[in-house]
């Protein structure tokens, strides 16, 4: 089967999809990155291949997410794209008339405004990660509720309590206060969902006109409590796509497919031997070349350095003798 691989290496999860020639998702894998993206990339690649019967022929690879450059080195990517473009491509591929995309991941939350399949405006959370997946994870762990049950429990609430939404630290102390006063846990959870929606609307979506259809994606879209809270706030239906948690990867795969097909290029995909055998290690060191003392990271396969980054002057990066960031060019 001819297919295209899309990979989204995020702060919390690493996602993989294979789409076929018609752009249909054939297989998807959602893994926790657990602080080790190199391991997650290999594991994800292995698993996604196992999930498909028969021989597969990967004709293109696209990577996105904060680990997109690392993934592109390990897998050999044809296209390396930022998360916003990847999410927008995936959403407008599945819902061509989408106008608003709410995407909440592990560390980021974004709003993307679309018009006729084109991003016309977007915003991301600035310096605050309140209301993103990792905050929810942390609160669920504190209340000893598996994150998977969070949403289900929250929607059981009949009377959500009011929780401060401005800041994650305030929200937490508010939650503890309400919990010690004896409010049922469901009401606190739903209150938190509503607080996070208020926070999102004030900080991320501020001033933007939210038009239907609204698509809610990213790992946090699994939380039905948040979806309900968004619907209540916006007063309209919020669509959660079937593959909500791997939309970035779908976008990357579609971009790779169109890129490879559009230019009639041979893929840079490295193949099984390269990815599955050999030892990938990342090392970091402080470069003493100048007073900047850059923290340089080196990715090696066995003893061969594949990539360097973190050096401001590009002295290490360029020592590999090629423009390893050439994919950054947008025009």
């Amino acid at each position: 089967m001819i297919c295209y691989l899309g990979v989204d290496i995020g702060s919390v999860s690493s996602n993989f999809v294979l789409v076929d020639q018609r752009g249909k998702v054939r297989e998807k894998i959602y893994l926790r990155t657990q602080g080790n993206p190199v391991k997650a990339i290999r594991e994800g690649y292995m698993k996604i291949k196992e999930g498909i019967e028969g021989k597969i022929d990967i004709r293109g690879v696209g990577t996105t997410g904060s680990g997109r450059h690392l993934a592109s080195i390990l897998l050999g990517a044809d296209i390396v794209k930022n998360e916003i473009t990847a999410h927008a491509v995936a959403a407008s591929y599945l819902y061509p008339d989408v106008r608003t995309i709410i995407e909440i991941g592990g560390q980021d939350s974004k709003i993307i405004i679309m018009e006729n399949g084109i991003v016309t405006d977007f915003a991301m959370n600035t310096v605050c990660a309140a209301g993103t997946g990792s905050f929810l994870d942390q609160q669920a762990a504190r209340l000893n509720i598996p994150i998977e049950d969070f949403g289900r429990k929250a929607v059981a609430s009949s009377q959500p309590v009011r929780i401060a939404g401005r800041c994650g630290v305030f929200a937490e102390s508010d939650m503890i206060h309400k919990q010690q006063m004896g409010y049922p846990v469901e009401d606190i959870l739903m209150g938190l969902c509503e607080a996070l929606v208020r926070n999102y609307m004030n900080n991320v979506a501020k001033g933007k006109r939210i038009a239907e259809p609204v698509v809610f994606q990213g790992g946090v879209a699994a939380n039905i409590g948040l979806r309900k809270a968004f619907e209540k706030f916006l007063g309209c239906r919020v669509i959660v796509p079937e593959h909500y948690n791997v939309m970035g990867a779908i976008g990357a795969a579609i971009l790779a497919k169109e890129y490879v097909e559009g230019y009639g290029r041979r893929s840079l995909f490295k193949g099984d031997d390269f990815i599955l055998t050999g030892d990938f290690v990342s090392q970091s060191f402080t470069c003493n070349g100048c007073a900047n003392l850059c923290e340089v990271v080196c990715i090696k396969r066995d003893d061969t350095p594949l990539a360097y980054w973190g050096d401001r002057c590009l002295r290490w990066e360029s020592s590999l003798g090629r423009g390893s960031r050439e994919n950054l060019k947008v025009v």
Partner: protein
Amino acid sequence: MKKVGIPQGLFYYYYYPLWEAFFRFLGLVVVRSSPTNKKIVDDGVTLAVDEACFPIKVYYGHVNELKGKGVDYIFLPRLVSIEPKSYICPKFMGLPDMIRAGIKDLPEVIDITVDLSRGDKGWQKELARLGKILNVNYRQIKKAYNYALEEYFSYRMIARQGYTRDEAIKVWQGEEISLPLDTPLHIGVLGHGYSLYDDFISMSVIKKLRGMGVKVYLSEHLPTEGIEKEASTLPKRVFWTLGRKMVGSALYMDKSPDIDGIIYVACFGCGPDSLIGEVIERKVKKPFMLLTLDEHTGEGGIITRLEAFCDMLARRKKRDEGYLPCYG
């Protein structure tokens, strides 16, 4: 020959040629601190008060480095106002005092007050005081100042051609830097010069954009009258000099047909930025992005935002030209 140290931070980017030419004319040797590096930043953050904005903290680091360079004077002007009825951020008013309180055993500090808010009179007095500090008569001081102004204007003309202030200083000093080539995407980038043109503080935002194939427009490249005219359309006059220039530049860029989008680079701890950024965001009709910087060195967030912004502009442009491949 006596040496005077000039920290490479804050208004360095605006006035270095003026200061350097002035002291050089009077026979002093000018010593600069190094371009901002990690050590300067670490020192600055340790020495400075916590409430200060990041560029002020970095400035402490620059002064600290100069202290060890054996200079006779350190030049820390007290900038209150550089034009009538407008002011520089109040932190600059207290800067020499803050620095003296934070860093011990400094060489002699030249802390002349620049306050042109009520005209020229006080400034002449300060120049005379400067003469006393340097032991030079007033006529020499005036001559040096006039010479420095000429040099300063030539530097401004260099910047106007399409350089950043940082590059313009280098070109003014005789370095050869070729102007960036014209590329299909044009983005206006605004921010306080001391954040924007300091590659460490801004994480090289301008270089990154150029690397992505963008031609960057800066407020230095726009006609002054045009900026002022646009700034005067606000219902209330902005009394911060730099803030007013930024609002004016943003509105001017908003009207220029060859600029596709505008990026505003703000510092997290900056009071004026929090207001000016908001004013601009509300007024501007073109695609606009606010980038907030602080002490973090993780570049991922900045790169993602810049890339996404460029992608968006490029794809919009292609759509308007009736050609749109999905892969950008």
